[in-house]
Structures are given as C-alpha cells and as structure tokens.
C-alpha cells in the first residue's frame, strides 16, 4: 500500500502540474485583443483615484511608468483578503474566505513538507524538542499550515454548502457540480482533520510520508492518514478539471485584460501581430460584411467608400 501511495502521489502531482500548465499556456496563447482596460489600473501613477496617462496632454510624448510590483502585490493580496466579497456579501465571505485560504494553505503545507523531507534526508531532526532551531521552526510551521488548512477547509466546505443553499441569488445559479465539489472537498479536509487530531497530532506521519516520497521508500502509515492521502491525491487529480485555475488566470486577466493599457505604437511587435490578424479571412454572414475578405478588407470595404462618394 505504501508503494501504491507513492506512485499515486507522483501521478497526481505530474497531472496537476501538466494540466495547469496546459491551461495557462492556452490562456496566454490567445491572440492580442482590442484594448478593454478598466480603471483603476493599479500600475498607474494615479491608481488611487483611477487616473490614467490620458489625463495628460500629448500623453504619447511622456513617460508612462508602470509599477508592476504594486500590481502583483495587489492581485496576490486579494487571495488572502477577498475584499469585494466582504463588501458585497459578508456572510458569503465568512465561509468563502476560509474555504479559499484552505487551498492556499494546503498547497503551502505540502510544499513545506517537501522541504522538510529534504532536510530530514540531510539529517535534520524535525520536532518540538529538536536540537536545532530550523527543526523546531519546521515543526511549528507545518503544524500551523497543515492544521489551519484542515480546519479552514472543513469549516469552509460545510459553510459553502450552507450558503449556496441559503442565499437565493447563489442558489439560483448553483449546479450539482458545486455541491459535489463542496462535499468532496469536505471529505478530503475532514479526513485530514480527523487523521491529524486523532492519530497524528504532531504530523509525524505526514513527514514520514514525504520522506518516503523523496527517498522512494514505502512509508508505514495509520489507515486514517493513508485514507486522507489517497483522497488528497484524488483531489489533486480532480482540481484542474474544476474552475480552480482561476487562482492563476484571475491574475493573468488583471494583467493582460483589465490593466492592459499598453498603446499600440508604430513599428512595434504589437503592431506586427495586429497586422497579421487583420490579414485573416473572416466568415461572418451578415449582409454588411463582405464574404471571403480579410478583416482589414471588410473594415475598409470598398462598397462603403462607393456609397459615400455617391452621396456627396
């Protein structure tokens, strides 16, 4: 069973990374679009009130500094606060925030487990009474991140089921898949919570499991821990098939759509891409769109020019 767990875990991680990568690549591969920016644009100098470089005369002759770090921080910090939800629907926020945080914390927990396991393989003792500070730090950080994710995930999943049923506007647009997800995630987090509280309060088994993963040696685990790990692996495999990629694509949407205020300049790479797109043949069927013509030809359709001349 220990070997099976190791194989399943590797498969799960390979799948989640691969599918997420494919999805993100697909998102990024889409062609440049018409500008559709929305203010405030956070990298702008006057982002506090939503101002843009268009507030200046002859904006194209002036520098347009962009504070990308501010934008990145802004988009990341919302993962930990979710301010719009708090403002608009505090009850929903009360359940949504822990639910969301549980995803972030459980991934962080597993990444930390990996580093802990590497350190253990290098001889570091991890525990509350470890001789080294790093060993003690690892112990407590793992306990906090793991413990928090199990508690937040369990409560959050339960809360999400409740709020999706209780709130009329959420209920109307809910689908069976939502409830399947909440129940599945409740089982995953709940099993982790039980395994932790009842059988593995120091998370020693989890560290052993991760040491087994990197040393490719089958760990001996309590059946409850084992069950949780199997469920968690299935959770990793299932996750990319849900809308969970929005953890990443929402940031992309901020940078590449909402805050994309880059002007098209003559001779730029952007202009080259646009010229290529304008050259593609379109097939829209309305009478005012000529058939078999390229985008640019339709947009400068001679038919319309002729009509114009006649009317003069």
């Amino acid at each position, binding site marked *: 069973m220990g070997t099976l767990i190791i194989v399943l875990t590797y498969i799960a991680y390979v799948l989640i990374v691969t599918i997420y990568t494919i999805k993100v690549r697909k*998102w990024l591969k889409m*062609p440049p*679009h018409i*500008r*559709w*920016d*929305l*203010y*405030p644009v956070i990298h*702008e100098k006057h982002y506090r*009130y*939503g*101002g*843009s470089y*268009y*507030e200046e*005369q*002859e904006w194209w002759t002036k520098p347009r500094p962009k504070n990308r770090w501010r934008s990145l921080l802004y988009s990341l910090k919302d993962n930990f606060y*979710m301010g*719009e939800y708090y403002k608009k*629907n505090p009850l*929903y926020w009360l359940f949504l925030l822990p639910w969301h945080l549980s995803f972030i914390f459980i991934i962080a927990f597993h990444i930390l487990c990996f580093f802990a396991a590497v350190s253990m393989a290098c001889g570091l003792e991890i525990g509350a009474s470890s001789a080294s500070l790093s060993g003690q730090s690892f112990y407590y950080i793992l306990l906090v991140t793991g413990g928090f994710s199990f508690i937040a995930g369990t409560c959050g999943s339960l809360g999400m089921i409740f709020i999706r049923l209780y709130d*009329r*506007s*959420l209920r*109307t*647009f*809910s*689908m069976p*898949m939502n409830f399947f997800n909440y129940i599945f995630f409740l089982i995953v987090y709940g099993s982790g919570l039980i395994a932790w509280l009842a059988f593995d309060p120091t998370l020693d088994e989890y560290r052993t499991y991760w040491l087994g993963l990197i040393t490719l040696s089958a760990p001996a685990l309590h059946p409850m821990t084992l069950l949780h790990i199997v469920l968690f692996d299935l959770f990793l495999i299932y996750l990319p098939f849900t809308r969970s990629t*929005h953890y990443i*694509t*929402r940031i992309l*949407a*901020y940078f590449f*759509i*909402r805050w994309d*205020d880059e*002007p*098209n*300049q*003559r001779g730029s790479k*952007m*202009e080259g891409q646009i*010229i290529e*797109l304008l050259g*593609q043949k*379109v*097939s*829209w*069927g*309305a009478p*005012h769109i000529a058939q078999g013509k390229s*985008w640019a030809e*339709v*947009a400068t359709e001679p038919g*319309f020019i002729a*009509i*114009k001349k006649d009317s*003069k």
Partner: protein
Amino acid sequence: MNRLIKIEDFSSCREQLVEIDPAELIPLPPPYDKIEKPPIRKLTDDQLKRMDASLDGVVAIGLPPPSGPEEEKAFIDKFLAGLAKLFTVENNWTFLQPLVHTLEYCVKCQICSDSCPTYIASGKQEIYRPTMRPEILRRIISKYIKKENSLVRKFKSSDIDLTWQTLARLAELAYRCTLCRRCAQVCPIGCDNALISREIRKIFSQEMGIAPKEIHEKGSVQQLRVGSSTGMTSAALKNILEFVEEEIEEKTGRKIKIPLDKKGADMLIIHNAGEFMAWPENLEAFAIILDAAGVDYTLSSEIAGYDSVNYGVWYDDFQFARVAILQSQVARALGVRKISLGECGHAHKAGIVIADRVLVGDLNIPRESTLPLLEEIVMSGKIKLDPGRNNFPVTLHDPCNMVRLMGIVEPQRRILRKIAPQFREMTPHGVENYCCGGGSGFAITQSTNFPDWRNAVSGRMKFKQILEAFQDVPGPEVKKYVCAPCSNCKGQFRDMFEYYGAWKKSGIMYGGLVELIVNAMVDIEKPFHQWEWH
C-alpha cells in the same frame, strides 16, 4: 420580493417573463416618491403581434416572430453559426481572450449583481442580473457548440432548450445592459459580464444582421454613408457652423471664424454631431475658448470627420473599425499632428483607446481628449475667469467611457473646483460612478416604449444620485446644473429630466463643461449659460 425567473423559463415560459412593477423599483426621494403613472407604457396589440416583447414587455429590437418551423430553425442555425465564430481567432481575435476568460472562469458568485444599477434599480429583477446573459450563453455553448453529453450537462446545470423565443429574449436582454462595466470592475476573478452583452449583440449583428435601427441602420450605416449618424451632411454642417458663428457674435460680440478643413492645423477636433443638432452652445463654447487661447485646430467636413460617434463600439467590430479608420483617414489627409475629441464619452473610448489596436501604420495618428487641454487653458490663466459667475449648485456626472473605462478622472474636476464655487460630488463618483442610464446606445434608442424603460429603470439610479447631490437645495427656486461632458449622457439627461419633470419640480438643468468655462469668462459681458430648458 420579485418572481424568481429561472433560465429554463427563457425557453419554456409562453407568457411575458417579467412585468416591471413600479412598487418594486428603488424608491426616489420626494417629490418623486409617488407613483403617478405606470412607469412603462404598454405596447399595443398590433405592436405585440409584430414584435417580440416577451422578456419584459419592452422593445429595443422588436424581432418579428417566425412564420413557421422552417424559419425558426433557420434562425436558430444562423445564431449557432455566429456563436461558433465567436470562438475563432480569425473572426473574433478582437475579444477572444476576455470572452473565453469570462465564460470559463466566472464562478457565479453574484458579487457583480449589486454593482449593476439596472439590476438594483429594477428591484433586483432576476433577468437583469449581470450573470444571466452569460449563463444562458454558456448553456447554449455546452449543448449546441461543445455538444457535451446529457450527464455532463446535468452535472453542470448547463441544459437548455433552444427555441426562437429563447433567442428573441436573449437578443432583447443584451440590450438591457448599458455596458457600463461596473460589474466587471468588482469581479475578483477578472470576468466581464458586460462584455458578454456586447458579444451577444455582435452575433446578432455580424452574423444575422440584427440590431436596433437607431444604432445600425440610422446610426453607423448612416454615418458611413452621409457623414453623421444624425443624418447631417457636409453641406448642412457648413450651414450649422455659420449659424454657430452668428450665435457667438450675438451672445458675445466676438467675430470668430471656426476653422474648417484647414490643412496642416495642429489638431483635428471631432465633436459628437449631437452637439451640432441639439446643443450648439457646446460648439460655441469650444470655439470661444480655443479662439481665446490661440489654439491651432480645425474641424473637418469630410465623412465621419465631423461626427465623433462610433456606435460600432456597442455592437459590431466592423462598423466600429470602419468609422475609426475613416476618422483617421480624414486626419491624415488634413495633415494634422493629432486628433482631439470633444465632449463625448463613447467617442473617447472608441477613438482613443479601442481603435488603438485597429489603426496601424500612418493611420495610427495620436489621439487624445480635449479635457487635459481645457484644464491647461483654465489653469494657465490664458483666459480670465470669475467663478462667481457660476455661483449655483453644480454636480459632475462621470461618463463611464471616459472615466471608468479610460481613467480621465481629475482634469474635469480640477476645472470645476476652479470655476464652480458650489461644486459638489455625487456618491459614488469617479471610476465608481453610475451610468447615466443611456449608455451603449440606449440614449438614442427611441422606438416604442424603450425610452420609458430607460428612464424608469436603467437611468433611475443616476437620477436618485443627482437628487441626493442636490438634497440641500431640493426646490425649483434654486437652479442647479448637472455637468455632463458627454453628448450621449446629455441626451439621456434631457429625456430623463423631462420624464420625471425634474426641471419644473427641482430646477435641475444639464449641460457640458465648456459652457460653464465660458460662463465664467470675465470678458464676456452677458451670462453665456441660459437657464432655458431644452
């Protein structure tokens, strides 16, 4: 609480889905709190036979019912063909990424709903939720484009029966969103449900040739044909400019020749032709300020060169591109260094921002707003101003296209703070403003009972906001000014104030920004702004 409308109802319900109940609309302050008449006129039996109004009893497009099953099938097939094209690079590179992102990643959390002034003002009618249109589209895609099997569709609640009725309602519903994009602004996932309204409009226009007459046939088509969506020809323009020059002389004693087709001028200024027809005082004020400041500019008499509107931005990529390209061609032929846009919100967004990725090579002539120029003139002291001449309550409306959608927030405020001592903000304002209710073509859509809906529902939140901004001086004895630097918004205010009787009951007037600047000019003897309702 209003009736819960489900997506299934769009296909199965044979009755009108929603009846706008005046008691459910958000309340307005006195004296507008009394319900004196049904807010929306009922259509006649004859109209109901000719046009589909089964969504909410209101008509923007008014599709005629099909004559039989064959026509219905052809209609559905055509829609599906257009929908499929929406996801191809060659046909829709323009909006593919934001479209796909919204359809794939919206989690239907409904955070956007409370940001939508139409949804809120309607008393939270389910059909007006920003998520309603995308969800219908998502279901159609699942069943008819992706052809997902029935189990998957059940799991994802993505089943829908597509009938002519479903599509007729969807077409109308796409014209119940003003594209103000407040919903998109608050979306934590970066989705844009307003864009979906535009993309639905696009399928109907670009594939099926269906759009409200005022926007397409009498709008962008007319603009491309005769030069302006108002129908104003080049010859008529010249007459109007002569009239404007005479008016300026009469009002100010100044003889100003408005430059027209002046080759090699520094900038081509393009106004919304609505100003020429309905608010010539805006043109007069522009001419007076630019003349006093010694600005080297010209207007154009070429097709599309004298009307900045670009209705395509609301419904059709090609109509949009055609107008934008023509405007740039006019500027190129004149040899100007830049194009500057007058007080028109959607023309700003269309001409300066959106056209940016359609205009290439020497058509990509620098384009800017006139607002920073006006700010520079006002602040530099090039013209002498006495704010005391504008000593009446003034509030500022932020046109969505100019403010939320392109970040021009402060220049107009800095001007007003300098020239209007009783200037006060609305709440909320700036990039969080509410739409006037006439956005995305609504202000020009005058057919059947649509104007009633626009005034009673989509503009209601703005009207409430305006009343609240003037709550310290509610009576008609104190004249008040809503400054709207946008021709489209002014059109909406004209209709909406008329609808509610706001001029008579509250003394609320609307106008542009330049009129207030000229009104404050010390070397103009008589007040430029006249408190005459028009």
